[in-house]
Structures are given as C-alpha cells and as structure tokens.
C-alpha cells in the first residue's frame, strides 16, 4: 500500500449533475454522488428510478447527455483502457455462454486483464469448486449469478459495480451472495451496487442513496436514514369492521406516534416508543369499542423511509 497517496485519495466515484434522456423519459435528472474508497455504496430505488442508467453511465457503457463522471480520479473519455483494468462489472442481465464450463468462462475473463487473481482462487471464492467442469447452461440462477460475480472480480478490481446482484434469486442464494459481497468488502475494495431490496441495502451498504425519478432524494447510512423518520418502529393495524374509521387527529395524539398514514389494508403509524404507543392505541380502541382485525409491528426500515419520502412503496412504486 502506498502511504503518500493516502493523504488525499480521489473519490472512488464522483458524479455531478448527471442527465440522461431516453425518447420520452428523463431517466437521470440531475443526479450527484460522491463515493469514498473502501465504501460499499447502494443506489436504492424502485424499478425505473434510473439506477441502471446511472450505473451504466458510470461503467462507461452509456453516454450521458450532460454532467461529469470521474472514477478513481479518471475519466472515460481520456482513460478508458486504464479504467477497464481497474473495474469489475456485473450487469443486470447477462447470459454467459451456455456451452462453456464455469472454468472456461472464468479463464476467458481472466485473459482480458493484465493483472488479477488466479482462476482457482476466484472459483473457490464464489464457492463453485464443485461446478468447475459444469456447463454454464446447467447452473441454477444463484450459481449463474455467482459466476457473474467471479467474472467481475477476476481482474482484482479496485471498484466493483453490481447491478441488482440478487434480483430473482431465492432467499438462500441471496444470502450466499451477500456473504460473498461482504467478504469482498472486507478486502477494503469499493463496491457500488443498485438494488430495489431495502433489506439488501441495509445489510450490505455503508451508505445508501435513495433514488427516485432520476434524482437522489435521500442520502446517508441506513441508520441515519431510518433515524430521520424520528420513529424506530412501525405499527400497522386494521379494524374488523372496515366501515368504522378513526380520525388522524386521535391517532396522532397517542403517546409516541410520530406520523399516521392510511394504507389500503388499514392504518400505519410511525412510532418512537413502541412500549408506550401500543398500550395507548389499544386503550383508545377499547374505549371506542372498536375491534381489531390485525395488528403488526416492525422496526422501521428503508422501505418506510421511501414510503415517507414518496408516499409510494418501494416494491410496487
């Protein structure tokens, strides 16, 4: 490790006022980002928020209409060749050649980089040792995704881009992939990933930018973002008789309730002190002789942050 450069290393990624328009959609609309070296940074947002367009511009695969992108202090128009050597990229949907084996695929990608890891090392790292000689076409979705990750890290990149790394995978495969990404992070490399899973962003990312309509609408650590709600918990309930209603003022007056929202299934309260708010809510319901159909609570998540910012839910926004 060089010691002199550590004084002021360039940001791993610097994006300023990025714009990109497709025929009738403004996919990216004035987006700014700064990602520090060694950070795992997440772009969280619903489908169509402009995450993939943003990341593909950063990867040098799409041209922006306007705005600046600097990666590791380098720029695509000047330093493409050097940048390619230092980036690892996993695209959202790549079907690797089905007729090749796992080992042949990794060997092909390794051959493109001047420096990198050994083929054995990478295959072991993504836990595909048993599948070395298997054709890509015979792999499960999770195994294919791990192979894609292997191809992304075989050049030993300084910066790894992962576009929706676990979309469409079963829970077990997702966890396995999260472990691999966590391991890579532990090596001190920078990771930039996009996801529309809030649990993924919370689990993996040091910092998260919530993206909607091509803009960053919130930025911070997952804890900061959740903390910004001023409520650590969310209480959801529904009344047995849907014709009966409770007014917002009554609910807001309950001790510890920070915000009230009506949702299709009933009511959603953002709550700072669960242990006081729930008994108080039950007391109000008893007093009004209202019966509950259901009552659930969960710790506030990035999903709740997105809902409070946009009024829409992440998964079906």
């Amino acid at each position, binding site marked *: 490790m060089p010691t002199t450069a550590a004084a002021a290393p360039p940001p791993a990624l610097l994006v300023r006022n990025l714009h990109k328009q497709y025929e009738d959609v403004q996919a990216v609309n004035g987006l700014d980002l700064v990602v520090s070296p060694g950070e795992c940074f997440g772009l969280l947002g619903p489908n169509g928020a402009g995450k993939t367009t943003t990341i593909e511009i950063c990867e040098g695969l799409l041209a922006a209409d306007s705005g600046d992108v600097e990666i590791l202090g380098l720029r695509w128009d000047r330093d493409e060749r050097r940048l390619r050597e230092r980036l690892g990229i996993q*695209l959202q949907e790549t079907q690797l050649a089905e007729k090749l084996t796992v080992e042949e695929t990794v060997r092909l990608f390794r*051959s493109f980089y001047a420096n990198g890891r050994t083929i054995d090392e990478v295959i072991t790292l993504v836990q595909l040792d048993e599948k070395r000689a298997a054709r890509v076409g015979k792999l499960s979705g999770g195994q294919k995704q791990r192979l894609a990750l292997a191809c992304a890290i075989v050049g030993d990149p300084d910066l790894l881009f992962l576009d929706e790394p676990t979309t469409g995978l079963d829970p077990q495969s997702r966890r396995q992939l999260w472990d691999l990404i966590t391991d890579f992070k532990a090596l001190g490399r920078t990771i930039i990933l996009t996801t529309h899973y809030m649990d993924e962003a919370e689990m993996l990312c040091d910092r998260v930018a919530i993206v909607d309509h091509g803009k960053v609408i919130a930025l911070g650590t997952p804890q900061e973002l959740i903390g910004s709600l001023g409520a650590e918990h969310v209480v959801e309930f529904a009344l047995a008789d849907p014709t009966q209603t409770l007014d917002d003022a009554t609910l807001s007056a309950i001790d510890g309730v920070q915000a009230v929202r009506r949702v299709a299934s009933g009511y959603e309260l953002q709550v700072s002190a669960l242990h006081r708010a729930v008994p108080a809510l039950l007391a109000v319901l008893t007093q009004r002789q209202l019966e509950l159909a259901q009552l659930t609570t969960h710790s506030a998540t990035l999903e709740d942050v997105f809902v409070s910012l946009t009024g829409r839910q992440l998964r079906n926004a």
Partner: protein
Amino acid sequence: MRERQNPSNAPRGLFSSSLWQLITVRFKEYTREPEALFWSFGFPILLAIGLGIAFRSKPADIVHVAVVRTDSSASSLAAAIRRDPGLAVEELSADSAAAALRTGRVALVVSASGSQVRYQYDDTRPDARTARLMVNDAVQNGAGRSDIRPVADSHVSERGSRYIDFVIPGLLGMTIMGGGIWGLGYSIVDQRRKNLLKRLVATPMPRSQYLASYVISRLVMLAVEAGVLLGFAVFLFGVPMRGSFLSMAVIIVVSALAFGGLGLLIASRSKTIEGVSGMMNLAMLPMWVLSGVFFSSENFPHVIQPFIKALPLTAANDALRANMLRGVELSALWPQMGVLAAWMIICFTIALRIFRWR
C-alpha cells in the same frame, strides 16, 4: 494506486492470451453445437450424395419393347429381338400392347403379319426411334442379314463435364457463404441479445481481438469443411482438381473473408435473432438462385448478367469452377477475385463503422 499482489501472474504465454482464449471459446461453442456441425459438414455432403445419385452416369438404359402375340411367328420374332442385350421384350395381346405403348411402358410395339414386320412407335420420342433401330437390326439379323463391315465400340465418360463436377464447386461456394454469414451473423447477434457483448466490452478486452477471433476461427473451420467436402468429392465421385492447390486456397480464403464481411455487416446492428435471420436469408436467397450453385447462371436473361456477376457467390463459384474443372490459375481469375475483394473491403469498412457493441 494500490499495488498488485500477484506478480506471478504478470507475464503470460500464448495460451492465456486473450486472443487465444477468444478463439478457443469460438471452437468450443461451435463443436458443442451438434446442429452447427451438421449444417457445415453433413448438409453439403448429403446434398452431394443426393445429387450424385440422381445425376450419376448410368449405363445405357434397357429399351422395353412389346411383340404382339398373334401366331407362332411372334415367338420366333421375340426370340430374335431378345438376342440384343439392350432390349427387353414382352409378348402381349394386341390390346395390352397398345395400352403399354400409350402409357410409355414400352417404346415400340412389333407385330408380324405374314413376312412383313410392322413397328408402331411415336417418332417424336428419341428412345422410341432408338428402339426402332435396335429392334430392326435384331429382326433383320435374326432373318439372316449379316453386317458387311466389322465394327468395334469403345465407350467414354469425360471427367469434369458431368453434373457432379459442375455442382461440387457450387456446393463449396455455398458452404463458404453459409459459414461466413451464419457463422458470424448468428453468433454475434446472439451474444448482443444476451448482453454478453456488452459484458465483454466492459472488460479491457481489445475489440479488434473479438472480431479477429471470429475471422480466424471461421477460416480454420472452413479449411476443415472445404477439405471434407472436396476430399469426399474427389474420392467418391472422382471430381477433378485441375488447378493448383495454392490458387484454390487463395480463392477459398478470399471468398471466406468476403462472406465474413457480409455476415459482420448483417450482424452489425441487429438485436434480435428474428431480425438478423431475416436479413441473412434476404442476402443469401438471391445468390442461391442466381449464382450458379445447382445450374449455370448463364440461364438467366442477358440483361441481368452484370448484376449476377457482381454477386459474391457468383464470383466465388465461377472462380472455384474454373480452377477445379479447367485448371485456370489466379492470374486469369482477376475479375472474380476483384469482385470478392471489393465485397470484403466494403462490408468490413461499413460494418466496423456502424457496429453496435452495447
């Protein structure tokens, strides 16, 4: 900048170079696709076998004739005719004989009335006229005529002028065209469609190497395909190879590059297999018909001959045919080679300019 930790990886040999890897990947993908192997090897050979059988040089056909069964003189007449091994004789009733003549089962009906022999036949049919001559000879000889001058027959079959000799260079040209256009077009569009092309350009892979891997692997596979087809034609059908091997190799390589360029051009933008298949068929179909694969392109009207001559498959077929059958060397084939070179240069130039990598 962080220092790299794997100095042992740094110097690398030929086998781990990216161009070598890309080429071996091409071969693996190709040889692991049984259908592709069939279309490049099996299909031209099956076609050659089929055509070889259909248009083989057959021994002269046996001519069928009928003798009308009237009286005992009929059987002695039939016996006399039967002495010629080129004639097959049936003795039939007058009605059956007439029916056999009408349907063409026999070429000639012979009937005797007294000492006169009557021949019934259609004198517009060449085989009927042949039958008339052969039968008459047999009848006259049977009645005691003897030839005045002795004769001897010797049969010839000229290699190089049979249909199979014509069609093998055409099939070779067609194989080169199909390999170039399908081999590049389909595979590249398939990789673009699957986002694999985009994934590859996201690595430091030199783009020229990607394209070079296609051209090189195509040429190597073509050498095998052409070798199999030609070896088969020479050993099984005795098709002549009168030109020099070098001229032949040059014609094949230049044709392959011309069609490779055309395949690359067709594949340069398309994102769907349907789209590229349509364009490939659009490019190949006119050439299958016009360029003299199965029959001479001279059959088409004079006015469209310049257009036909400008097609790359016409140039390839004409050059291959002239070289194989007539031993014409490259120096005399410059019009054809010029057409192929022009296609090659124009197609590659445009294709590289408009190629969609993402």
